[in-house]
């Protein structure tokens, strides 16, 4: 991508691609609550529903980056609230590892974020998407993005 195009994407209405992993019981519900509360948010995110954040394999996250995601969000229930006892504790451990690898690969920390969102926190979900979108718009497209993917 030319430098020109890169600056372009930063300023105009380029919409980043954000993959949000959500657990069925909390953060997916949070996204639903955002809908019910009509909390408006940028149309940049696509949600991948899993039953528990514990299901999220680091490979899924890298897969998302390699498929052109500009940011990947790992979300789940608040610690202690996991529907499967402690799935999110395991997520936390895996996330630490993920963070390190992402750092090694030169991925900015804004592009990989962890957030615990309960089913009632619709506004929080919407704000999260809004904030991440704004951060990524500043950064521009992901360095891992394959050629040709918007």
């Amino acid at each position, binding site marked *: 991508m030319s430098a020109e195009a890169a600056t372009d994407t930063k300023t105009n209405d380029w919409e980043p691609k954000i993959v949000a992993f959500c657990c069925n019981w909390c953060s*997916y519900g949070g996204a*639903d609550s955002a*809908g019910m509360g009509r*909390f408006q948010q940028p*149309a940049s995110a*696509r949600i*991948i529903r*899993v039953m528990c954040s514990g299901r999220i394999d680091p490979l899924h996250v890298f897969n998302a980056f390699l498929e052109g995601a500009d940011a990947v969000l790992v979300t789940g229930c608040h610690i202690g609230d996991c529907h499967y006892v402690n799935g999110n504790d395991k997520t936390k451990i895996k996330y630490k590892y993920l963070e390190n690898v992402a750092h090694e690969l030169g991925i900015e920390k804004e592009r990989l974020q962890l957030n615990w969102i309960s089913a009632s926190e619709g506004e929080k979900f919407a704000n999260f998407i809004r904030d991440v979108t704004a951060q990524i718009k500043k950064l521009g497209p992901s360095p891992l993005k394959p050629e040709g993917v918007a």
Partner: protein
Amino acid sequence: MKGSVAVVGGGIAGIQAALDLADSGFKTYLIESRPSIGGVMSQLDKTFPTNDCAMCILSPKLVETARHPNIELLAYSDVKSISGKAGDFKVKVVKKARYVDETKCTGCGSCTEKCPSKVQDEYNAGMSKHKSIYIPFAQAIPRIATIDAAHCLYLTKGKCGVCKKVCGPKAVDYEQKDTEIELNVGSVVLATGFKPFDPSILKNYRFDHPDVITSLQFERLLSASGPTQGHVTKQSDGKVPKNIAFIQCVGSRNPHIDRKHCSSVCCMYATKESIIAKEHDPELNITIFHIDIRAYGKNFEEFYNRAQREYGIKYINSRPPEVIVGANNALSLKYEDFSTGVVTQDFDLIVLSIGLDPADSTRALAQSSGIALDDFGNIATSIESPVESSVAGIYVCGVAQGPKDIPDTVAQASAAASKAAALLSGERGTLIKERKFPDEKQLSPLPRIGVFVCHCGINIGSVVNVPGVVEYARTLPGVAHAREMLYACSSDSQAAIKDAIAKNDLNRVVVASCTPRTHEPLFQNTCREAGLNPYLFELANIREHCSWVHSKEKERATEKAKGIVQMAVAKSALFQPLYKQQVSLINKAIVLGGGVAGMTAALDIANNGYHVTIIEKEKELGGMLREMTELYDGKKPADVLKELIGKVNGNKNINVINEAKLLKVEGYLGNFKGVVLANGKELALDFGAAVVATGARNLEPSGLFNYGKDPHVVTQAQFEKMLGKGISANNITMIQCVGARNKEREYCGRTCCVDAVKNAIRIKKANSKANVFVLYRDMRTYGVMEKLYENARDLGVIFIKYEADNPPKVQGGSVLVHDHMLNQDIELASDLVVLSTPLVAGENEEINQLFKIPLDRNKFFLEAHPKLRPVDFATDGIFLCGSAQAPKLMDEAISQASAAASRACTILSRKFIETEGAVSVVNEAKCIGCGTCVTVCPYNAPSLYDVTVNVEEVTYTTNKSKINAASCKGCGSCAAACPAGAITAQHFSSKEIGEAIDAFDKGVKSISIEKGFVEMTV
């Protein structure tokens, strides 16, 4: 005794009662007088305080009712009389002539299209017309046409007959007659609802003017399926109004027309309608004229605050005496505002917030069947038995028992079901059928995906270009069929989906509509009915995650919707059929908390024939009722408690453990293992279901109004006790909303107004000379409690309204208050100042950790759905009742307790529990036997076993893992942790997830349709 129940009334109350009974093993007749079930809820656009779309949450219940093998629907039928006795009733039902053969009609609607004559549409509250042969609304159940005999040209004049000619299945039958049938049932549940108040008797409100409409009419105007497709317009000239007024309490709180009750719901529905109207048109000015704003329920106060803060809705504390019609038919209201004096203001549209009147049919049926009514014309009940009518074996729920909102109605419905089921528990399962699905069809090897895109009225369709999404879906690889639907969840759409599966030989189904959290089971069942395994289904959420959150960016929303559908399609192509297993369950329950709610829940479960253990932390049963000295009907709590505790102790199915605490819980629905600590010993306790009834506690208002410093300042709870002993104060001032409805604690305490009024009456009755002042912000004596408020005023209790920003001041011996109505400060000599404080959450955090059940922001428990699942948790097998959910009055807590018992019995009565279908499985060849999965799994589902491996003449023994499907919950943690990639989390496999990620925003251009795979365009 008969194992069957007749439920009279097919609104949300009747539907819930019927579903609970049918799920607990009873044959249930649901009798509804209108052509379709659904009641008034089906006419609502949204529900407060979450603004959930009413039809969206109701429709799945309608469909479930119609499908339930144990429910027999008798729509368009009236109950003439009930005779007999508990266990053996005869119910006479008149099936009214529809002039259409129910067994032949397919609901296709050709007849309604061609019918030349028109009738006022009851569903749209008379604001539009439907044909003389009609189906009342899109999601109607049963979906059968009905002829309005009074207007049909053939039936009145012998002319026309066009419907008969066009009807393909030959269902129209002009000769049909009313038929009378007699049902023999063990019990009857009355859920006859209410009649909206007819404001035309209040001539001064000028209901004859086209722009004076009822709140129900306004609700229809807001609805996408209403007469104006959701555009609020004036009936007079079709123009958009600018200034709208709501007049509250029309037909409520009005002794002159013998409507003394408060209708309980109008303040909140007016608030809701105002918010929705403002969302449609932010330019609107909306004013609500009211006496008190009664935002007493869970999250109501917060909703009311939002209406003012975020939507700029104006609330004026005044009741205009009349609607003035001036020159050119212009409307205005003259009212007295305490700050500005008498004001006259013009309005374009005036909405009368009409109350709930007892239905005439309820009265008639009660009279003919000897069922007692209360002073207001509701079916009479008592505080301790809120769902039992005066006739044993006949139960009541919903507004037929007194005005109430939807969650309270639903709770009572389950409660009535619990009572009927307990009565007939010996006959459980004798008259029912098993639900049968057709055999699964042979799947063709390549995916043939059907995509159904829902408009959801205008919820999706007004933002997302639905036809565009359908077009797009057609281009996606593997898609064999795509179409749009107005409401994908309605019964006709279900039929259409099944039809499409058969015609197009579909082997995967994607519905693009709302959230799978509520609607997945419905569509999965549709698939099963069409011979498809339910796991071949995927929901693409384009409402909550798209149209609702991008409502201003139509194009982007459409693009995103396409993307979401694309991901769902890609994922679904990989789906494989999965099967559930049946495991046994423990038919025993536990109840946490031995207060009134806990004891009631336990008794109901025990009377349904199941063993139950009450775990109480105190030495004795009774909870908060022990602190009370009189109920609002004058009964002594001690007597009530004595009887209740006697019943509990005398029931051989109930075991009480006092001074006990639940320490640990593991397991799942039907098979929980708990550890209880009692008397210093740990005790194992296995159970299949649990009811949380841990109550709440009174707020100690430390630091407020000199509490704690001045001994003459006490709380209402303390005062309650003092009254029991007798007190000698002559000047008593009560202050309401202490520590509630403020920044720190936004909610309303719900019970405090009733308690204050009750105690004020007690003082006055004991000593009529005593001066009693109640300083309040809004008096929230909702429903039939209004009677207490009236009583108190008659007895000379003085009520003074104060404003939140100018609260009373307590100074030694007197209280200084700014009287908002007189606009001056008054000093009230007070020997005793009583502070009404709200209930606050108890030690809910411990239990929420144990069961992994959520709390709301005030630390009360969060139910599964605020409207339709008020006593369920999202986690299966655990239920909720009483003040642990939110503050409530005793009869409400009792209703909820019975409801929780009913819900628990729908589980305890099962023969087996079905496991998850989407469990994880191990590929033995890849497994390296490391045991990571064993450590990771919280349910002990994986275990290692020895295998002997034979490779190329080498034989060795190693570990392999296997997963027990019965204990696997399908969280997928093991699959994510397995270092060898040997575990597949079925339905959420890495392949399926990967396929969805790959499909993110591959533009249509990049898809090669002929080849059927996704290519990168470089």
